[in-house]
């Protein structure tokens, strides 16, 4: 099936006070792809992500997830298909224990309790944190919180995983684990991040945002290697590429 799983056409969004945040954004993402959304602070990455599950509504333009147009009526179903992991795990772990947080999504979907149990176990297992099931969130380390936050979304069996700055505040080991996990997921992955080294390791494609519009799009290595392009948009060429073979 060649229909892209995420399709955005001519999206425009302005804040209530009138300032334009996103201008004429169009992009399409195939199933199973890992795409990075990069740009300087204030470029509009988070704003764009919040459109993908209907939290924000565009002023004009349309969004299609798996072919279905995103509207107020379809938002609930689309939220099951598009799992969003936010920047601060403390904002997403709001239940008394990890297990209940992971069960929150499936519960809201109205699944029967034995299936919920099974999803919780497999989601936690997927991120390697099954032993944390009865732990309260304030007793987790940053890396554990991040992993559990991802599990809360995995339990909903989404088709698309959207993540905002997943590697922030992680120590090197936690970050390495995260990268390995992201590489192992089969879901479509859309990652907004400043961690350009992570992009090189995980993503095949990159979309560069600046001032609310898409300024470049293409193969991750090719664009990230393009030093003038990177510098022009508040980024830089990641060190990891300086040491790779030029043809990689």
């Amino acid at each position, binding site marked *: 099936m060649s229909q892209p799983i995420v399709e955005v056409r001519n999206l425009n969004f302005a804040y209530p006070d009138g300032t334009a945040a996103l201008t004429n954004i169009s992009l399409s993402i195939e199933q199973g792809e890992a795409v990075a959304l990069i740009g300087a602070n204030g470029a509009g990455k988070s704003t764009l992500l919040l459109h993908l599950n209907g939290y924000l509504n565009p002023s004009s333009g349309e969004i299609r997830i798996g072919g279905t147009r995103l509207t107020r009526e379809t938002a609930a179903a689309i939220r099951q298909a598009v799992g969003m992991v936010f920047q601060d795990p403390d*904002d997403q772990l709001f239940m008394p224990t990890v297990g209940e947080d992971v069960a929150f999504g499936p519960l809201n979907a109205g699944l029967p309790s034995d299936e919920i149990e099974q999803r919780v176990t497999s989601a936690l297992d997927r991120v390697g944190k099954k032993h944390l099931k009865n732990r309260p969130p304030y007793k987790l380390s940053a890396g554990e919180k991040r992993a559990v936050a991802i599990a809360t979304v995995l339990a909903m069996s989404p088709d698309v995983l959207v993540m905002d700055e997943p590697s922030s505040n992680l120590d090197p080991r936690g970050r390495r684990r995260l990268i390995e996990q992201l590489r192992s997921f089969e879901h479509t992955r859309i990652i907004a991040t400043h961690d350009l080294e992570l992009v090189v390791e995980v993503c095949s494609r990159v979309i560069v945002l600046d001032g609310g519009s898409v300024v470049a799009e293409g193969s991750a290595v090719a664009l990230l290697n393009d030093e003038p392009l990177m510098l022009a948009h508040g980024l830089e060429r990641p060190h990891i590429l300086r040491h790779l073979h030029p043809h990689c």
Partner: protein
Amino acid sequence: MGLETWIEVSRMDELGRQDTPVHRIDARVKTVTTLLFIILVMSFSRYEVSALTPFFLYPVALLFLGQIPPRSLLMKILVAAPFALAVGLFNPFLDHRPVSAIGTMSISGGWLSFVSIMTRFLLTVSAALVLVACTGMHRLCAGLERMGVPRVFAVQLLFLYRYLFIIADEGSRMLRSIELRSAGSKHLRFRVYASLVGHLLLRSMARADRVYQAMLARGFDGQMRVLHPTPLRWSDWVFLLGWTAFFVAARTWNLAGMLSGPFMKGAS
């Protein structure tokens, strides 16, 4: 503050999440038993002392069976004690009329009512603390909800509890940064205070927005749902009925009086 107090809160929560026979008793049963305990203790008349003493069995028993270190509870009781102490301590100084005697020493009504107040205080406070330490906030709120407390309120308790540490942590970080720039002064002027509180409020509201986003993203539609609960077991019933019988007996007859016979006879 701040951080010392929160360490206490998290310690209480840790105690509450242990797994002992007492912890496994249903939260509803423990809550009802504790409430009954408090009501019966408070229903004694103001000068009663000896009849109150058997009631100590309840918190002490739970303390040991629940593997709760007595020292942590004692610390909290000591912290809360000054209030009852302050109010009660005036009685002995103002009521000098002797009403009974131990041996040849006479006891005034004031001392008696003071000791009664302090005994009551000790009993009720330790019962409440032991309840939380043996149950944990999470199970307690779930139990409260099943006893009829509105879900909105039970959820509110859990959310408050969850974000307490985070907001308090933010607050103490802001305060520390102010202190570091205050040239050693420990005074917090009103304008600085208002600004600190205002900022903390804004950050709290922003956090609430983000939590709401996260909830929506996982399908929240306004209604909090819970997994199915476990039914009461025979051990729960034994706990409830056993302690109720004991409390009623201790309230109806002065068990200590029976045991200690001539020691505390009234002056009549």
